[in-house]
């Protein structure tokens, strides 16, 4: 699938498409650059629309991508599903594909220990961690990234 399934609010996401001639099944450049429309849940009005662009045209065929900023300014919200509707026309035949992704306030579940500040930094969905290291006990509360 040419789209990640999850993105952290505020991060960028890139989706891609490879266009084929439906008459032959052969990878073929589109007649014009594909267009896209991005919908939040099932709201009829898209929050973003635009055109994709060729990527590495010298070494690829029919390969188009688009990068979008999944920011609140662009209308994205935590824990919503966003559906991308892409249309492309090849040899005068129009095809389409949908992608979907979620915006996640908790990120991919990474954590680290910062030795300099002697702090643990969690970026996980789990609500709380208890780390017992004798003779000390540490209690961690995981919060969404801000």
């Amino acid at each position, binding site marked *: 699938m040419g789209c990640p*399934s999850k993105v952290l609010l505020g991060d960028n996401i890139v989706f891609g498409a490879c266009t084929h001639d439906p008459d032959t099944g052969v990878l073929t450049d589109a007649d014009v650059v594909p267009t896209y429309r991005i*919908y939040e*849940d099932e709201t009829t009005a898209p929050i973003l629309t635009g055109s994709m662009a060729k990527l590495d045209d010298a070494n690829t065929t029919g390969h188009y991508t688009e990068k979008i900023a999944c920011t609140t300014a662009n209308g994205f919200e935590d824990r919503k*599903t966003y559906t991308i*509707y892409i249309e492309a026309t090849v040899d005068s*035949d129009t095809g*389409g594909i949908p992608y979907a992704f979620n915006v996640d306030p908790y990120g991919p579940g990474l954590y680290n220990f910062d030795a300099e500040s002697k702090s643990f930094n969690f970026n996980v*969905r789990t609500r709380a961690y208890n780390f017992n290291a004798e003779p000390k006990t540490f209690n961690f509360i995981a919060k969404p990234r801000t």
Partner: protein
Amino acid sequence: MGCPTEVYLGDNLVFSVCTHDPDTGVLTDAGAVPTYRVYEDETAVAILTGNMAKLDDANTTGFYTELVACTAVNGFEVRKTYTVYIEATVDSDTGGISYAFKVSP
């Protein structure tokens, strides 16, 4: 793929399809709205079934979506895999696609 691969229990999830005429490969509205069935793991009885709906019909072709509430009331459980089976008929030819996602706590 027109479906996220992960959802938190209690959240909504939207899946989607674009229907094509298999004779021409051209994006085409289905003869009727596509139907869907949602299965938990490999349990043969679907936990949810229904019909999808067109979205933004004025600006799209053959574009159908459905929002489901992934709640315990609807039968969803954490750490299970849910498979969405979708059927659509275009120009009297029936096609299908399946998506899968997991529910996280």
